[in-house]
């Protein structure tokens, strides 16, 4: 079991979702996050003073999956999330020791 975590641009989620659906990925968990990186945030003006907002809104996607699917999913996210401009985000993969479905108590592949 692996956990694939991707941090992407919010308005690309819809595209990523569609691409993953074709691949058969039907579940994931999303979080609204703020990214800090090369891409710079915007500037706001207040009473004549400028303030840099350093953070950029991003969406964090978590997908639990079986080992053999990992590469294809990562590749699919990469392709569907990329715009080619700085700030497209990161994907990382980490190990999972077990996964359970709350409703039924099933574990492992059956729980996904």
């Amino acid at each position, binding site marked *: 079991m692996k956990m694939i975590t991707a941090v992407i*641009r*919010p*308005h690309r*989620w*819809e595209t990523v*979702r569609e691409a993953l659906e074709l691949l058969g990925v039907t579940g994931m968990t*999303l979080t*609204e996050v*703020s990214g800090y990186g090369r891409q710079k*945030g*915007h500037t706001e003006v207040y009473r004549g003073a400028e303030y840099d907002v350093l*953070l*950029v*809104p991003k*969406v964090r996607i978590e997908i639990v999956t079986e080992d053999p699917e990992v590469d294809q999913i990562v590749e699919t996210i990469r392709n569907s999330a990329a715009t080619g401009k700085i700030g497209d985000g990161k994907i990382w993969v980490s190990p999972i020791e077990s996964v359970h479905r709350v409703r039924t108590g099933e574990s492992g592949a059956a729980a996904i």
Partner: protein
Amino acid sequence: MNPTAAGDTAWLLTSSALVLLMAPGLAFFYGGMVRAKSVLNMMMMVFGALAVVTVVWVIVGYSIAFGDDVVGGLFGDPTQYLFFDGLVDVESVELPTILFAIFQGLFAVITVALIAGAIADRTRFGTWLVFCAVWTVLVYAPVAHWIFDFSSDGHVGGWMANQLHALDFAGGTAVEINSGAAGLAAALVLGQRLGFGREPMKPHNLTLVMIGAGLLWFGWFGFNAGSALGANGLAAVAFVNTLLAGCTGLLAWLAVERVRDGHATSFGAASGAVAGLVAITPSCGTVTPLGAMVIGIAAGAICAVAVGLKYRFGYDDSLDVVGVHLVGGLVGTILIGFLASSDVTSVDGLLYGGGADQLGKQLVAAGATLVFSFTMTAAIVWILDKTMGFRVDADHESSGVDLVIHAETAYDLHAAAGGGGRPHFGGGGPN
């Protein structure tokens, strides 16, 4: 036009607009108090009441309330002014009757809309609209006839105003006690919300509550000072009293909170001002400024305690219509018996040396309204619940009525958080 009438008309036009504004004001006051998942439904109940009650009033309500009495001061002839027939007079030389008629109609609107607060978060919108129509005809219009319809040459009015001689300047009985008693009945018949007494169910947006309170207070000047039906000294006194009672109500409520809980809350400030305004509604044209201050203090303090009773007795009067409008209405209506001053009105109250006579009349008027309204409302709500269904399913209630009934959510503020795009996620297009 009679020149004094021009000034009076100007003020009554303004007052009517102000009372209209109380409807949105109430929508925001109540809307801010419910949880975020039912704010739209709450606002819809108030706007819906505005629309339905106005139409019903114009068709038949005004006739029942202000038509010639049909039997024993109980109600007027329902067919007399159907569709405001015969009230149109663009060349009127006196205060136009149609203006008085619509001013009164807006009182009906507010009264009905207030009841919504007692049954928030759990009612069917369609049934609510039917309730608005039925209740206006069967409960509001008769009570308005009793207390607001004064007899005159060739016209016979209601029993409270003309036989009992109870004093109610702007609606302590017909509006406040009436809506409060109805709220209690409706809350009892429909039952508690899921989670009542366990979850806090606190206001989801206190700035919206305050916007509502501000607009209500502003509009209340039309309600109270407008009830003088002219731009004159009586209107001025009613205006001053309305301001003062709101202020002392606010302070008294905060004082109770500070002593009891250690904290004076903004929700308490809004509630206290409204409690004072409720209590001064019947009395603003009958007491002196000093009397108004006393009434505001009494209402603020008593209502601050009364809103806790629902937890004790288990009726889920969601937004405290009972604690504020029934209790505040009783306080104001009864205190007239003590504080009425012949400087302002026709009699003196007990404390001004007028004896207990007026107090007795006030108690009769208050009691009659309470009992009639409670009984009738319980019956109406019960019948509507059995026939059309008045309450949503438990499932829908926990999902939130906004989504289930109106297929809407109130807020979608995320975009503001950032620049590019926004995690709307929602996806899908029209389907």
